[in-house]
C-alpha cells in the first residue's frame, strides 16, 4: 500500500466514523449556524455606532468562518487523539505501516472537507440573513485555500493539545482555553482599533489574525492577501510537523 493509499484508508474510515455519529455531525454544523443567526441576524451590526459590532456586516465574515476553522479542528483532532489513546488504537496503529504524520494528514483532510462544507453554509447564511455582500472576484478562489491551510494549522495545534491533555475532558478544556482568546483577539470580531496599542503585537502573533486579514482582503475589502497566506502556510507546516511528532506512539 502506498503512502497515498494508507492516508486514503485512514481518511475514509475516519470520515465514515464521523458521518455516522449524528449528534456530532448535527452540532458541528449547527454551531456556526446558530452563531451567524445570533450575531448576524439578532444582534446585528451598528456601523454608525461605537463599541463591538460597529463595523459593516461584511467585516465579520472572516470571524464567522474563523469559528469553525478554529474550534472544530482543535476539538475534533484533540478528542480523536484522546479517544485513540484511551482505546489502545495508537498501540495497534504503531504496528502497522501507517505513520503518525500520515495519521494526522488523513484526519486533517477529513477536517478540511467537513469545515469546507460548514464554511459554505456560513457564507450562504451570512448572505441570506445579513446585508453582507461578499466581493466576487477571481481572488475568491483563494478562499478555500485559506480555509484548508488554516484548518491544517489548527489540526496540528489540536494534535498537540490532544497529546498533552490526559483525557477528553482535558482536551475540551484546553481547546476552549486556547480558542476563545484567539477567536476574539485576532482581528475577527474585535477590530484592532478597539484594542490598546500595547496588545497589538499579541494580535500579530496569533495565527488566526492572518486568516482573518487574508479572507477579509478577499471577501470584504479587496487588498493584498498573498503575504497572509504565506505566513499561514508556514505556520501550518510548522504546527502540522509538531502535531505529527506529538501524536502518541508509546504509552
Amino acid at each position, binding site marked *: *500500500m502506498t503512502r497515498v493509499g494508507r492516508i486514503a*484508508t485512514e481518511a475514509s474510515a*475516519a470520515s465514515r466514523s464521523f458521518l*455516522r455519529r449524528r449528534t456530532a455531525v448535527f452540532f458541528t454544523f449547527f454551531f456556526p449556524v446558530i452563531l451567524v443567526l445570533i450575531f448576524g441576524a439578532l444582534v446585528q451590526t451598528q456601523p454608525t455606532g461605537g463599541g463591538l459590532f460597529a463595523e459593516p456586516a461584511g467585516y465579520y465574515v472572516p470571524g464567522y468562518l474563523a469559528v469553525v476553522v478554529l474550534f472544530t479542528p482543535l476539538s475534533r483532532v484533540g478528542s480523536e487523539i484522546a479517544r485513540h489513546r484511551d482505546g*489502545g*488504537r495508537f*498501540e495497534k496503529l504503531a*504496528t502497522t*505501516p501507517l505513520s503518525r504524520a500520515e495519521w494526522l494528514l488523513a484526519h486533517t483532510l477529513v477536517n478540511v472537507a467537513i469545515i469546507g462544507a460548514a464554511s459554505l453554509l456560513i457564507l450562504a447564511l451570512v448572505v441570506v440573513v445579513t446585508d453582507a455582500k461578499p466581493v466576487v472576484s477571481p481572488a475568491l478562489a483563494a478562499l478555500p485555500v485559506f480555509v484548508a491551510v488554516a484548518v491544517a494549522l489548527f489540526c496540528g495545534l489540536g494534535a498537540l493539545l490532544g497529546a498533552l491533555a490526559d483525557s477528553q475532558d482535558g482536551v475540551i478544556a484546553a481547546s476552549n482555553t486556547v480558542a476563545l482568546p484567539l477567536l476574539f483577539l485576532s482581528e475577527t470580531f474585535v477590530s484592532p482599533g478597539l484594542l490598546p496599542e500595547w496588545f497589538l503585537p499579541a494580535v500579530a502573533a496569533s495565527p488566526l489574525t492572518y486568516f482573518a486579514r487574508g479572507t477579509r482582503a478577499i471577501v470584504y475589502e479587496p487588498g493584498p492577501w498573498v503575504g497572509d497566506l504565506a505566513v499561514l502556510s508556514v505556520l501550518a507546516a510548522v504546527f502540522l510537523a509538531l502535531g505529527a511528532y506529538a501524536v502518541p506512539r*508509546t504509552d
Partner: protein
Amino acid sequence: MNETAAASASAAEDGETDRGTTDAAGVDAATDSSPVVVGEGVRKSYGEVAALDGVDVRVEPGEVFGLIGPNGAGKTTLVRALTGTTEAEGKLRVFGASPREVDPQRIGLLPQSFDPPERLTASELVDYYGGLYDAARDTEPVLRDVGMADDADAWYETLSGGQQRRTCVATAIVNDPDLLFLDEPTTGIDPAGRRSIHRLIERLAGDGTTVFLTSHAMDEVERLADRVALLRDGAVVAVGAPDELIAEHGGEPSLEVALDGPADEADAESVRDALSDGAAGASSPAVESTREGLRIGGVRPEEIGDAVDALEAAGVAFESLAWSEPSLEDVYLRLTGEEYSPRSGEFGETAPDGGDR
C-alpha cells in the same frame, strides 16, 4: 539459586548460543532458524514500580509461546516492549531487528485493551486495518476464520463483547503476519467462540506463524502453547513446555471425595490409616479434609479402586469421586504463591512453590 534466577539464567544461556550476529547498525542478521523474539534483561519501570525486572525470553520460529502470570505481573508491558509500543531497557530483538525497525507487514497485534474506531461494521474494520498494509487477506475469509461471517455488517458497538473481541482478533490477522501477538484474545468470548479462536491459532501455527499468546485461561495456554513462561512481579519464574512445567511443579494426581458434608480430621485420619495399612499400596498417602469432603493426593488411575477400598474400610460413605491430573493451573497457583487451600476453599497467598511466606 532461586527459581527465578535459574529460569532467567537458563533462558539467557539459550539466547547466547543461538543469537545471530550483529551488524554495524545494531540489527541482528536473522536466519530462518534464528529466534523470532529475543528479550534479554528487559526492564521497565513506571515510577518506582518495576513492571519488568530483567526478563529473558526467547521464541522460536513457528512456536506458540504462552505467557501467563497474575494481573500486574508485567505480561502486557512485555508485549508492548516487544512490539515497540513502550520504551524498555535491555536487549529486544524481533526478527533480528529492534521492535520499531521490524517490517510491520510481518507483525500482527491484538492489544489487551483495544477499542477500534466507532460506527464501523466488523467488515469495515477489517477492511480498514487491511487497507493500511502493503498486502492483506480478503476480509470475508478473515471474518470467517474468527466466526464473524454472519455478523460482518453489524456495527462494532452493537456486537456482544465476545463478538467484538473476535472482530479485534480479525484485525490482528488480516495482514497474514509471521509473528502474531495476542494479548488475552479470548477474554469475554463464549466457549464456542473460544474454540474457534483456538482452532484458528492452531491452524496459524501449523502454517508457520509464530504466536506470542498471553492469557489467564490456563486450559487455553496448556492446549495451545508449545512453551510457556510464567511471570511474577516482572520476572520469569519458570519457562518450559506445559508438560514439563506440570511434571516439575504441578504436584500429583488426586482423588476428590465428595461427602454429605465437610469431613472432619478423624475421617481423614481413618482413611490415611486404611491407606497406610497397605490396602491401597500408598506409602505416605496425603489425605486432607476439604469443604466438600476429602482430597487424596498421589492416587494414580490404577490405584482408584484401592482408594475406594480404603474409604469403605474407614467407614467413610461418599457421594461421588473425581480424579484429576495436575494441570497448568496448578503450576500457576503454585508458582505465583496463590495456591488453592482445599480446607478453606479459598485462595491464600503463599510463597512461590508452596512454601509459607
